[in-house]
C-alpha cells in the first residue's frame, strides 16, 4: 500500500479533530485562565451543545442546512444561558474557591448527564450534515463537510482572537486575567466579566459540539473525552495563552489522528500520554506559558 494516501487521510481526520478540540479547549482556556477555576462540567456543556443541536435540527427538519444553521445559533445560546445561571446561583456564592468549585462542577456534571439521559435517552443520534458531497482529492474523495468544519473552526478562532485583542470587552477580560484586584480598582466589573467568561466558555464548547455532531453522533456520555483532552491541551499550551491552547490542540489533535491510523492503538496511546507528561516535566509552565515569578 502507498504511504501517501494513508498519510493524507490521517492528517485530514486529525485536522478535523484538532479543529473541534481547539474550539472546545479555547472555552476551557478562557474559564481557566481568567477565573482560575477548573470547570469539570465543561465536557457536559459540549455534550449539551450536541444534544440540543440534534433536537433543534430534528424540530425544524425542512432542509438539513436550515436545521444545522438554526442549531449553530440556538444551541450555544441555550448552553450559554444555562452556564450563566449556574455561575450566578452556585459559583459566585463559592467565591470561585478552586476546591469548592471542583465539587460543585462535578455536581453539575452529574445533574446535566442524568437530565439528558432522562429526556434524550441512552441512544446515539446523528444530525444530518448541512451539505453532503465529496471533494475529489488526489487519491480519494473527502467529505466537504469535514473540510468545512476545519474552515469554520479557523474562522471562530480568529473571531475570538479579534474579540480579545481588539475590543473593549476583550480588554476587560485580559485585565481581569492579569490582575483581578487592579482591574477592580480601574472600575472593571469583575463579577460581570466572570459571569460572561463562564457563559462564553460554555458557548464555545457548544459550538465545537454543533460542528462535530454531523460527523460524530450525539450521545449523553460524549462529554468525557473532550473534557480530558481540552484540559490537557490548556495546560500543555500554557495557562492563559490562547496561542498556546490552539497550537497544543493542533499538535495533539493531529498526532491523535496520525497515530491511530499507523500504529497499534494501545501502545501508541501509552507512548503519546507519556510524551505529554514529559513535555510538562520539561516545561512545567507549558509551551507558551509565562514562568511564574
Amino acid at each position, binding site marked *: 500500500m502507498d504511504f501517501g494516501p494513508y498519510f493524507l487521510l490521517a492528517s485530514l481526520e486529525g485536522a478535523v479533530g484538532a479543529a473541534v478540540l481547539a474550539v472546545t479547549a479555547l472555552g476551557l482556556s478562557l474559564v481557566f485562565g481568567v477565573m482560575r477555576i477548573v470547570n469539570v462540567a465543561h465536557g457536559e456543556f459540549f455534550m449539551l451543545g450536541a444534544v440540543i443541536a440534534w433536537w433543534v435540527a430534528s424540530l425544524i427538519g425542512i432542509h438539513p442546512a436550515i436545521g444545522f444553521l438554526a442549531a449553530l445559533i440556538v444551541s450555544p445560546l441555550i448552553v450559554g444561558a444555562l452556564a450563566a445561571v449556574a455561575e450566578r446561583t452556585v459559583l459566585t456564592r463559592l467565591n470561585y474557591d478552586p476546591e469548592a468549585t471542583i*465539587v460543585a462542577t462535578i455536581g453539575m456534571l452529574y445533574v446535566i448527564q442524568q437530565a439528558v439521559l432522562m429526556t434524550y435517552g441512552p441512544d446515539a443520534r446523528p444530525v444530518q450534515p448541512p451539505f453532503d458531497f465529496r471533494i475529489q482529492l488526489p487519491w480519494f474523495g473527502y467529505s466537504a463537510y469535514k473540510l468545512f468544519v476545519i474552515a469554520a473552526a479557523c474562522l471562530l478562532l480568529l473571531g475570538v482572537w479579534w474579540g480579545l485583542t481588539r475590543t473593549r470587552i476583550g480588554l476587560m477580560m485580559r485585565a481581569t486575567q492579569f490582575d483581578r484586584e487592579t482591574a477592580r480598582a480601574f472600575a472593571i466589573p469583575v463579577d460581570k466579566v466572570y459571569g460572561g467568561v463562564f457563559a462564553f466558555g460554555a458557548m464555545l464548547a457548544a459550538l465545537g459540539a454543533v460542528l462535530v455532531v454531523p460527523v460524530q453522533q450525539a450521545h449523553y456520555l460524549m462529554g468525557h473525552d473532550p473534557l480530558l483532552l481540552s484540559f490537557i491541551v490548556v495546560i500543555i499550551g500554557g495557562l492563559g495563552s490562547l496561542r498556546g491552547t490552539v497550537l497544543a490542540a493542533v499538535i495533539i489533535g493531529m498526532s491523535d489522528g496520525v497515530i491511530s491510523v499507523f500504529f497499534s492503538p494501545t501502545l501508541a496511546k501509552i507512548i503519546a500520554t507519556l510524551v505529554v507528561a514529559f513535555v*510538562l516535566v520539561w516545561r512545567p509552565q507549558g509551551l507558551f506559558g509565562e514562568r511564574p515569578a
Partner: protein
Amino acid sequence: MREIFRPDGGTALHLGVLIVLFALQFALSDYHHINIARIMVLACFAMGYNIAFGYTGLLSLGHAMFFGAGLYGAGLAAQFAAVSGPGAFVIGLAAAVALTVLAGAVALRTAGVSFMIVTLMFAQAAYLTIYYFGEFTRGDEGFVYPDAMRTLFGLELIEPTVRYTVAFGLFAICLIASFAVARSGLGRIFVAVRENEDRARMLGYDVYRMKLLALTISGAMAGAAGAAYGLLFGYVGASFANIEYSIYPLLWVLMGGAGVVLGPLLGTLAMFYLVDVTSGFTTAYLLVVGAALIALILFFPKGVLGTVREKLGARGARWLP
C-alpha cells in the same frame, strides 16, 4: 509519641470513632455489613489521598494508578504465582510504593496544574498498560480473585466477620497513622509546604523531599487499600485504575474536609450511602447526587468537617487535626 496521643478531646474522638466502627459489625444487617467493610477500605484510599492533597497540597489526578498497583500486584501474584493473603498484600503494597516513588520523583518536578496533568497522564498510561497486557490482566472484564488464595494466616477472608475485622484493622492502622502524621512535626512541615513553599524552603526544609515523602505515604495507603480490596471483595479489574478512581478520592476528601483526619471517612461514607439510598428509589439517582453535592458545598465550602473545624476555632483544631 506521648505528645501525639496525649489524652485530650482529639485522641478521645478518634478512639471513639474506631470503637463505634468495631462495635457496629454486631449490629449491622448482612447488606450494611459488607457496605461498611467496603467503605472502610475505600476510606483508607481516601485517607492516603488526604495526606498528599489535604495536608501537603499536592492535587494529584493519578491516584487510581496507586490503588490499581496494589490491586493488580496482589491479584496477579495470587492468580499466577498462587501467593496467599499476606504475601499478596505485601507484593501489592510494594508495587504501589515503587510506582509512587518512581512516578512521584518525576511528577514532583512540576507543581500546581502541571502536576495535575502529569499525574493524570501517568495514570492514563498505567491504565492503558493494563489493557496492553490484557492476556494476563483481562482488561475491563477483569478476573475473579482466586478463592483459594483469599486466606490470611489460615483465616478465610470470604467469611463476613473475618472480612469486616480485616477491613477494620487496615482502617485503624491508616487512621492512626494519619492522626500521628497530622499531629507530628512532620505533618506541620507538610502543611507549611502546602501553605507557602518558598517560606518552607527558606526555613531550611527540602521541599522536594518532603513532597516525595508525603506522596509515598499517600501511595502506600492507596496501594494497601487496593490490595485489600482485591483480597476482601474478590475481584480485580481495570475499571479500578480508570480516571474515575482518581476523581473519587478527591471528591470524598473534599466533601468530608481536606486536611482533616476524619474527613475522608465521612466523605466516603456520605457519598457511598448517598448513591446507595437514592439509587434505591429512583433510577435518576445521579440527579439527586449531583444536586446534593452542590447543596453540600454551598453550605460547607471547606467540606463538612473542614467547615465545622473552622467554626469551632481553637477547639476545632484540637479535636479535628
